[in-house]
């Protein structure tokens, strides 16, 4: 039995596939691919499949990760080509690795955000200059008010016509996850001018001390 970590893109129409549906979608894709997937034993056997980090509905990604377990040896190139032959529009496997890090090692993720609106760059700067940015976070325990400001690492902000393009690093993983749309929602509320979210794209997943999750 061998474990493989598959890095895949989830873009375009595929951003509307919820996390729960993505699991079912991948199970079916692997079944179509003919790869020898390992099934759990027991009363209701199911295909072993693990997603270390969920992606929220509507956000696209270049770096999604899925772990699979095969009962027979298969080369990374065979796994890639078999999967890509059967994946739906918007899902595309880009790399197969041997898992190095564990799910609980994930600490942050980087996003590229494209917003449309009038004169957004100065507004964004004012937004970040606030001492605190209070936002409501829905958790299992109920609604919690948190301060987003220390959690946002803004790496880049660039105006292009009426677009504002941001590179943001936010906490991710089991220890505390910030959905990128929480930041854009808070910004919209702050700006008091119509802001249209063109695109939310996850670009990287990190472990502690800024090392890429691998």
């Amino acid at each position, binding site marked *: 039995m061998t474990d493989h970590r598959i890095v895949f893109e989830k873009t375009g129409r595929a951003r509307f596939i919820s996390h729960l549906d993505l699991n079912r979608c991948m199970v079916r894709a692997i*079944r179509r691919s003919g790869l020898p997937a390992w099934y759990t034993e027991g009363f209701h056997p199911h295909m072993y499949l693990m997603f270390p980090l969920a992606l929220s*509905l509507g956000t696209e990604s270049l770096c999604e990760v899925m772990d699979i377990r095969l009962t027979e040896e298969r080369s990374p190139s065979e796994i890639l080509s078999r999967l890509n032959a059967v994946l739906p529009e918007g899902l595309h496997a880009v790399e197969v690795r041997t898992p190095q890090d564990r799910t609980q090692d994930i600490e942050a993720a980087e996003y590229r955000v494209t917003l449309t609106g009038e004169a957004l760059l100065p507004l964004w700067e004012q937004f970040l200059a606030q001492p605190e940015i209070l936002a409501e976070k829905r958790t299992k325990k109920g609604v919690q008010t948190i301060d987003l400001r220390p959690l946002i690492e803004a790496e880049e902000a660039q105006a292009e016509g009426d677009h504002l393009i941001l590179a943001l690093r936010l906490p991710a993983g089991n220890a505390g996850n910030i959905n990128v749309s929480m930041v854009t929602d808070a910004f919209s509320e702050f700006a008091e001018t119509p802001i249209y979210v063109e695109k939310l794209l996850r670009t990287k997943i990190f472990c502690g001390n800024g090392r890429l999750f691998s």
Partner: protein
Amino acid sequence: MLKEKIGSVLLEVQRPSRYCGGEVGQVVKDKAKVDVRFAFCFPDIYDVGMSHLGMKILYARINERENYWCERVFAPWTDMEAVMRREGIPLYALESLDPVKEFDFIGFTLQYEMSYTTILHMLSLAQVPVLQRERGEAIAPLVVAGGPCCCDPEPLADFFDLFILGEGEDVDLELMDLYHTMRDAGATRSAFLRKAAEIPGIYVPSLYDVAYHADGTVQSITPKDGAPAVITKRVMPDLDKAYYPDHVVVPYLEIVHDRVSVEVLRGCIRGCRFCQAGFIYRPFREKSPEVVCRQGKALCDNTGYDELSLSSLSTSDHSGIEEILDGLLAYSEQGHVHLSLPSLRVDNFSESVLKKISAVRKSGLTFAPEAGTQRLRDVINKNVTEEEIMRTCSIAFAAGYTQVKLYFMLGLPTETDEDVLGIAALAQKVVDLFYATPGRAKGRPQVTISTATFVPKPFTPFAFEPQVEKAEILRRQQLLKKAVDPKYIKTSLHVSDVSLVEAVLARGDRRLGAVLYEVWKNGGWLESWEEQFRAERWYDAFAKAGLDPAFYANRIRPYEETEPWAHLNYMVSRSFLIRENRKAHAGETTPSCRQQCAGCGANQCLGGSCF
């Protein structure tokens, strides 16, 4: 452009993957190379429509033709509908995301009466005139319909250009071919419709004048412009040769019947007198076991589904059912595929069949004795004895099953209080049997009784029968409820005005078009969903149209009366239905077709006997 607009609003709605298309198995073609486009519309939401087998067959069948393109369209749920109205997004098809109004054919499937107002709403969302007479002489878009409710499509006559009677595999393409030729020759809508009426199975309602007697019953149905006096449904005589897809669209979200289905047979040998499907899908035809197995495996392999349903009206009536199960069992175990047999009958449910389906997964058992006493089961020709029900439950309990669901109908012709109490007695016997079964599972049995109100349907021996009124159904329910021991038996006794509306529409005439229009105008749509249904909206519309629902639903219809569907031929003869109605009242049963031909007439299309 519409594509971007749709993408920008989908995060506002629940389950956006209902509305974005892009699933595995969808067929996308180059518009420029396509001659005829068909929008296959299911008048309910994605989750329901995507579960429909007929759509999957016809979608693949049309798309096999390189120059024809069939796409899927579903009704939006209310949240998406509000967004579409706000943003000016017209109803669109999922493959191309193009507006439905640009298609050549807008084809609906008529699966149940409560979807009729949804059809009107979808046409309006598509920005296509709802009324046929307002569509003008341009040939497209043509609004057409198929499906079981076409056996009395009269309430919808005002809204459709034509109806397709019977099985669509061949006739849909014949219709598209004719359209292709005539459109390229510059034909008008009415010229096309006159010509289309010559295709067997095509019914063009605007080519018939209906006159009524003073009492509201139909006096005459008169064809004009050379339309045929009688339209006969289409049948695919050989299922092994009929088209069947080896791939279907694989949805992202969990739909109502989230599995692939292979159809194992069409028609039914049973002749239960209340069951419309059992008559209108005749004659009985089986697919051979090797074809069933081949198609089932191909569907699982191509879609990645891990559940395969062997579907039909009564799967265990297939003469080769054990052979089919043997052929699929090794595959299903090795490939982690769960087999499901949704329509098993009580009387031929053998131990070996049970073992074979439970080999992969164990679920509850569902039986439909339909009536509580043997007398009433004989009246409805549900040829199932209490002994058989007990024998089957005993096998199931011994095999470890604990859940049994029993389905019944209230308001069947000749039903008495004794029959109602018989339901409770039968359920109690099942409970007692559980405790008396050696080797049963631990714990309590879970026996559930569900009742539905009987709705008389066209082309059944009970098409002449009145529906029992709601107040009386309520009384019978209370009687039943008091008679069961709630400790062991759960009751799900549903009653609503929906049954009355169904009974009106199922055997309705053209005058009901005004009622449908009014209900829709007042906000009625997606009324198959309880929360969307308002009884007052219907009663107001009946009053406004000057029509009495009781005339349609609660009246005995004499054998001599001309029925609104008298010009439609579903191959079961009227004399056979009258004979069966008389036998019902005499409490006489009719054996299954396999035992003895009852002479319904459906074998005319096979050129000989069914067996």
